[in-house]
């Protein structure tokens, strides 16, 4: 009979103390928001990393660690320590169990965006997400030596259209780089947005990469040696080295055999990695940081709930008379206790709901920035099972935080009875 009465009393009492109750709810909401945001970024970063490449069975590069190879070949993070000779590439491509290969040549950039030299096999075989192929939003694939196909983000950020002439810089970075300005490229295609590092990449042919370096040796232009763009077209532009190879096998069953054999290749030290396995290794590295971040957010929530407990405790003194009145009209001490527990529960539930609302607001507002700065697409999606578990745990913890003040109120109302002895 009295449960709805108690619930109603606690809500009315909170409304009567709008300012302190509101601030408490806000504090809880901020902490809930933080927890959810960290969780969201963590899962979306993982999903986004995992979605960056699919359908590629092996990645082959100069011998190095699996994570390093994965990072520079797929995520365009860091640099290759060594190169793969063209001959090794041909040997890999010729293997009987290999269905397709994508040669990759990295090391140049355009206004901070990486330039990838590759072949048209890239457009045929590269897959991301759920085996989604690349698609052109405008224009066509590269065909001529000096054709370039832009990722969606490159075109958007730099405001490039088809026909735009661009100069590729030697090396990676955004300033102070020497340009290959004697051999400009022309934008012939712009890719659809993928939500992967492809969006931030300028794609040219391997021959294009070779062409701009033909009069360069050891990272600098050879003095006095000038070969014009037209002359270069007549030359043999087969590259001497590339950076990495993406490999698709005819049958996934042979994947470990192929990996073993390529890694034991005699002419050159090579590494072959399985992208999924390398990603798992990467998560192993980031787990420590994630755990640390998780612990911090737990403390933030604890601080929010402690603040709430303080507020409820502080209200006890001034509400002693109210408790005595309720006792006189027949409330049991357990009702008094229930009143305070209900109050904490209400504050936590409202705070949690508000914090969740904050999260979606923040995603909506911050999405363009996060996407532009970190290449991370944050989708608006319903709370995951983990989110719901977290929210549930917070509500339980918040309700439990109401117990100490409730117990004190219980003991006081037992002692006070119907009259406050002052």
């Amino acid at each position: 009979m009295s449960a709805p009465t108690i619930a109603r009393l606690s809500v009315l009492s909170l409304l009567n103390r709008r300012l302190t109750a509101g601030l408490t709810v806000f504090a809880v909401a901020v902490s809930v928001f933080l927890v959810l945001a960290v969780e969201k970024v963590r899962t979306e970063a993982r999903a986004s990393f995992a979605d960056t490449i699919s359908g590629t069975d092996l990645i082959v590069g100069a011998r190095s660690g699996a994570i390093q190879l994965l990072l520079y070949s797929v995520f365009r993070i860091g640099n290759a320590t060594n190169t793969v000779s063209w001959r090794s590439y041909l040997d890999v491509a010729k293997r009987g169990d290999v269905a397709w290969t994508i040669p990759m040549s990295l090391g140049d950039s355009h206004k901070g965006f990486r330039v990838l030299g590759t072949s048209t096999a890239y457009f045929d075989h590269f897959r991301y997400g759920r085996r989604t192929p690349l698609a052109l939003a405008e224009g066509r694939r590269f065909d001529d030596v000096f054709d370039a196909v832009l990722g969606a983000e490159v075109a958007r950020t730099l405001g490039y259209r088809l026909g735009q002439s661009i100069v590729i810089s030697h090396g990676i970075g955004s300033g102070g780089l020497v340009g290959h300005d004697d051999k400009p490229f022309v934008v012939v295609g712009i890719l659809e947005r993928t939500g992967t590092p492809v969006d931030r990449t300028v794609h040219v042919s391997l021959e294009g990469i070779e062409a701009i370096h033909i009069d360069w040796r050891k990272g600098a232009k050879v003095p006095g040696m000038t070969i014009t763009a037209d002359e270069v077209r007549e030359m043999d532009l087969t590259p001497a080295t590339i950076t990495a190879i993406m490999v698709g096998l005819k049958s996934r069953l042979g994947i470990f055999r192929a990996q073993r054999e390529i890694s034991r290749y005699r002419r050159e030290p090579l590494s072959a990695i399985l992208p999924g396995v390398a990603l798992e290794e990467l998560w192993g590295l980031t787990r420590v940081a994630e755990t640390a971040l998780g612990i911090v957010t737990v403390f933030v929530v604890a601080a929010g709930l402690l603040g709430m407990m303080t507020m409820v405790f502080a209200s006890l003194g001034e509400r002693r008379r109210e408790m005595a009145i309720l006792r006189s009209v027949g409330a049991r001490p357990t009702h008094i206790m229930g009143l305070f527990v209900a109050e904490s529960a209400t504050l936590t539930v409202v705070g949690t709901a508000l914090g969740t609302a904050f999260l979606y607001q923040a995603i909506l507002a911050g999405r363009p920035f996060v996407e532009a700065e970190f290449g991370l697409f944050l989708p608006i999606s319903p709370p995951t099972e983990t989110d719901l578990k977290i929210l549930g745990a917070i509500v339980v913890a918040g309700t439990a935080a109401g117990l100490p003040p409730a117990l004190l109120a219980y003991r006081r109302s037992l002692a006070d009875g119907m009259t406050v002895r002052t």
Partner: protein
Amino acid sequence: MIGLTDVVFRWRPGDVPTLDIPSFSVAAGERVFLEGPSGSGKTTLLNLLGGVAVPEKGSVRVDGTDLAQLASSARDRFRAEHIGFIFQMFNLVPYLSVEDNVVLPCRFSSVRRERASDQPHGLVGEAARLVSAMGLDLAEIGGRAVSALSVGQQQRVAAARALIGAPGLVIADEPTSALDTDSRTAFLDLLFKETTAIGATLVFVSHDRSLSGSFDRSVSLGDINRARPGSSGVAA
């Protein structure tokens, strides 16, 4: 209605007893003036009658029920059902409306709720009727925060709350001490009229002897209580 026999109460074992009442009774429908200066054990007696405290020895009977024999939750239910209280001041729950304050006992006692709901205008109508019977204009004060009411108005609302659902016993603890003489008399008249209307017994506790004239009987707590709690330093 009330029967105390050989009641002994002390706050802590080993203390001087606060109450030691061999015998005290009030008949049904009687209006009793109980004179209890501070330090006479008044608060303790009210807590015993309300079943908030139980005596160490003896029995406290209200309407034929020995409260000491009931479990604490049953005593709380008994209090909600049978007794309406009016205190000295700050009687109202600050965040509830006048109407919500008046119907509050009906939230804890289904018997009183049913009795009040059976009145011609239902629960809310009965609350409104009692408020105006106590001389208040609900249309005028109904929308106000109860803390914005004058002390006299608050006491009348408290009286309406004590009376709703026709409890058998109304206990008023210094309800008029914060009022001026004129309002005091008017308040008493209305309280008498309404307790009579519902056939309730009235125990009116006060240290102001001048009010005792209009009651059926006047009793001094000092006379029925053999203990001298004031000397032990326990506030009452």
